[in-house]
């Protein structure tokens, strides 16, 4: 029988995602919830799940190692993969922001000739500065980006914030929002054609559940 493979991101969104999948009627094995198993099936053996690092989900899906995936919009836009994005899930909400020390508020960034910006999102950051006509040098980091302006590695940073607490704790303020992010269902373009019914049915079930949770206000993916 045809099966679909779904790539899920480990970490922050994991519990909410597994809860969503359970609530649309799929029974998951014990090991799935502890996060130790990297590959598991639902009880009916219709779906195979793989747990991947969040930034890798679009890659698994574009290459066809998974038919569908759930990824943050931030990761998706940064990866520039060719995927369908039929459904937003309404959770995992956060913002990609430009932030820096409070005095940066009064600076006209267009007049700075060598602005240094630390980020985990070099592509989105570059694109933003390019569109704004600001010349910036991007310093790619893989974590604790808030540190960079504090120790003078960079003037500003571009990073994801949920509540903004980490920024405040380090004496930093938000300057600009680059992107409103949330969890999104992504689909491999070939799978969308070749397993059209299966994919569509799964998306419809998820959309219905999401719609109910939002009190019927969502009208996506009909």
């Amino acid at each position, binding site marked *: 029988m045809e099966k679909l493979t779904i790539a899920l991101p480990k970490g922050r969104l994991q519990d909410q995602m597994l809860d969503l999948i359970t609530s649309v009627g799929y029974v998951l094995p014990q090991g799935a919830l502890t996060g130790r198993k990297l590959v598991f099936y639902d009880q009916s053996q219709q779906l195979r799940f793989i747990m991947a690092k969040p930034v890798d989900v679009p890659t698994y899906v574009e290459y066809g190692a998974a038919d569908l995936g759930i990824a943050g919009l931030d990761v998706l836009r940064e990866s520039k993969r060719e995927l369908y*994005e*039929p459904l937003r899930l309404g959770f995992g909400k956060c913002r990609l922001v430009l932030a820096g020390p409070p005095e940066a508020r009064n600076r006209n960034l267009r007049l700075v000739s060598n602005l240094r910006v630390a980020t985990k999102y070099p592509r989105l950051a570059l694109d933003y500065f390019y569109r704004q006509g600001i010349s910036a040098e991007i310093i790619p980091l893989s974590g604790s980006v808030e540190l960079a302006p504090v120790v003078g590695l960079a003037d500003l940073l571009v990073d994801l914030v949920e509540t903004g607490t980490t920024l405040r704790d380090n004496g930093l303020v938000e300057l600009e929002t680059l992107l409103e992010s949330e969890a999104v269902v992504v689909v491999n373009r070939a799978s969308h054609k*070749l397993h059209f019914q299966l994919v569509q049915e799964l998306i419809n079930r998820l959309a219905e559940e999401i719609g109910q949770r939002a009190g019927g206000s969502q009208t*996506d993916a009909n």
Partner: protein
Amino acid sequence: MLRDVVKQGRIPHGVADTFYEDAAAITALERALHDLFTGWGYARIIPPTFEYYDMLVTQASEQLQDEVFRFFDREGQMLALRPDMTVQTARIAGSKLYDQALPLRFYYIGHVFRYEEPQAGKQREFTQAGIELLGADTALADAEALSLTIEALHQLGLRDFQINLGHIGYLAATLADVSLADAQRRNLELTIERRNPRDLAQVLDEYQIPKDIANVIRRLPHLSGDKHILQEAHALAINRDSAAALERLEQVYTILDQAGLSQHIILDLGEIRNMSYYTGIVFRGYISGLGFPVCGGGRYDTLVRNFGADLPAVGFALSLERVLSVTKAKEPIAPDILVQWGYHPLCAEQVNRMRKLGLRVEVDVLNRQETELVAYAQQRRVRRVLLCTDTAEFKLIEGSQSRWLSSEQLLGEMVLWKS
């Protein structure tokens, strides 16, 4: 043991050295396509590998413009490596073949160059094969391009594939009375292609698209499936031109259906190829295990007129490397037989005979003795070794067995090997 390649031996990112079974597999695919296209009445066209940048690029999509390899000649003219062969075929047809009997049918197989991020099945240099049918603006011509696409994918050993078929005219007609900047239009197309309903609603809102038009566009990503989607699309059609686009799509689908090919077709009005020259049907083929299309094509009725004659046209192209990245086809390269002393007059006659029969014959040029030759044959996976003598007797070694044969007996054997 692997060892580092010396610096002089390295090659740039995005290009590949292809040899042995892989190169033979490409040759086999090319041969199959030469035969197929010729069999459908298409004649080969061989455009130059590089041309003036302005010619190649002005007609291409913005995405292709970004991906073109450019360079200057000694007079300071900007040149470019071709990113596809459709524009070149249009140039040749429009500027040189305008007074020929119509329609014109051409096929090409050659390398194209795009500055893309290298990844599986996506290289900066790859082999493109395709056809262009010029001078016929009919549903039959559209259907022929699609039938030939499906047949080509079959010939290349693919079974599990789908062609996503849309019509750019539906969106174009729907937006006919809306004025959008080029960048806005591209962004709108990109958002439709991603099938992200919320982003689409947002973009339609931001660009202040009138409500009746926005309602149609919002449905585009969902108008995907079998011919039943055409009913809803018809109900949504807001003007004569968008209805005409659907009628053409339906005619093409009907022709393919009658030919027993519709199981490979998914109608999809969200299929918008981001190539500026398309004007009618547009399609892309997808195969299992590859997230990007293996082939694509469509109708471009306004491209050729830039070069002189006003010829409507339709065509498709596919990437051989992308096909191979999925089928993983290999073509054996080992010769059928290895011959010692193959240039000795007594032996040369036998070698010629074998080659005339179509056998692959390798002749030793290192003056090796029997044991060395047999060891070499094993390494190269050659199944037979033939040793000559002064007495016109031949020693045939197959695996661990050997026999002595007269030239008549040898001839008898050859015929068996071939069959």
